[in-house]
């Protein structure tokens, strides 16, 4: 099992959700976060001097999925969340060892 963590633009969340849904990927947990990337945020020209706004609101999506779903999900998110401008975000893949349901005793354990 893997955890896909995607940091995207908040205004893209609806598109990403719809794109994932279309391909049958539903479960997800969403965090409202702030962040800065390598560009250190957004630069405003302000009367000569530049002002950096370095903590921009972002949306972080977490999805725990089977190993085989990682690639397709990365592609779906890329396609639906991309604007091509700085600040589009990142996707991180990390390992998950156990997924346990709370409603019942189902469990999936990564080998």
């Amino acid at each position, binding site marked *: 099992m893997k955890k896909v963590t995607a940091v995207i633009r908040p205004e893209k969340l*609806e598109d990403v959700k719809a794109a994932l849904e279309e391909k049958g990927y539903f479960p997800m947990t969403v965090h409202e976060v702030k962040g800065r990337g390598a560009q250190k945020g957004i630069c*405003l020209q302000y009367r000569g001097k530049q002002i950096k706004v370095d903590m921009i609101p972002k949306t972080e999506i977490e999805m725990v999925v089977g190993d085989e779903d990682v690639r397709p999900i990365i592609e779906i998110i890329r396609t639906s969340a991309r604007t091509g401008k700085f600040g589009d975000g990142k996707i991180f893949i990390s390992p998950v060892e156990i997924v346990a349901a709370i409603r019942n005793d189902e469990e999936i354990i990564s080998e």
Partner: protein
Amino acid sequence: MAIDSGDTAFIIICTAMVMLMTPGVGLFYGGMVRGKNIISMVAMAFIAFAIVSIQWVTIGYSLAFGPDIAGFIGGLDHMFLAGVGLDGNGIPDMLFMMFQMVFAGITLAILTSGVAERIKLSSFIVLGLLWTTFVYDPLAHWAWGGGWASEMGALDFAGGTVVHISSGFGALALALVIGSRAGFGKYSMEAENITITLLGGALLWFGWFAFNAGSALAADGIAVNALVVTNISAAAGAITWMAAAWIKGKPSSLGLISGAVAGLVAITPASGFVGPMSAIVIGGFAGLLCYGALLLRVRKGLDESLDAWAVHGMGGLWGAIATGIFASAAIGGVDGLIYGNVNQFMIQLLDATVAMVYAFTMTFILAKIVDKVMGLRVTEEEEYIGLDISQHGESTTA
């Protein structure tokens, strides 16, 4: 007639209540925009009020209420409040000046709908001063300062043309000049703080009693009539808009409060001339009409998204016409269409049309000029970050 303490007390308090409507508009709008622009909306309402306050006592009042020049504008005799004294007829002249000031202030605040979430603050200030001077002041003169409209016999009790048609169609022109918000139509841009919008709406409903009843300029039967029909129309508008929205989907609280405002707008010009049962019709129809106007605007993909046009513009238009339909001589001395007075109906139609065309055209021209000279709109980055940070250097976490 000397100063009457009851009337004076009444209009002082009404002035304060109408003043409160201006931040009320700011909160009403502020709750409807994205969180990154809420301060901007509320601040613009305050700024509108502050700059108009100074404009009015220096030049605006005189342009509106100075001696008539060609039916179009007032002369400069009252600049810097020259000749405006503390005595008068029933209420002090100075109080009349002040009561009129708060109307001018809120009108500019309503106008911010058309440029929400994308106007440059400095440009708003310049545009606001120009707009008040070249749009509001003449319209006030026409209706109340002895201009052509009042000479013709047009009825506008509390500002259907002066306040609502002007700001509503003005906002439409501004939205066309400044263009849609980035991403409009692509991303959902939902109201983020509806509680604050409802609070703003409450302050509007409250203040509107003073707006309309106070326009009697005396605590008398006409004021009471205005009070009663104002509330009825608001209630009727709230109910019909909510019902219509319910039929199409869910009865949102935004619909409810927008309907109330639509009813309040529509009764504004009529409130000294029509009776309570007419008010049910005027307000009820206003709710439906303005909701229809909103749906049309959405279908047209037009980003005048706080709906000053749909609610104030179209509601004001309907109100001006409705005054010509429902006016009753028993109440305000003039009959309307339903009492057989076709003439008054035609006068109202003409008055409203001219106000609409003038407000739209002049606003369009002024906006184009400001856009050419200093740019109306913030940069793409500033818009993305939001006006709170980019224009005011602040943000609100809660």
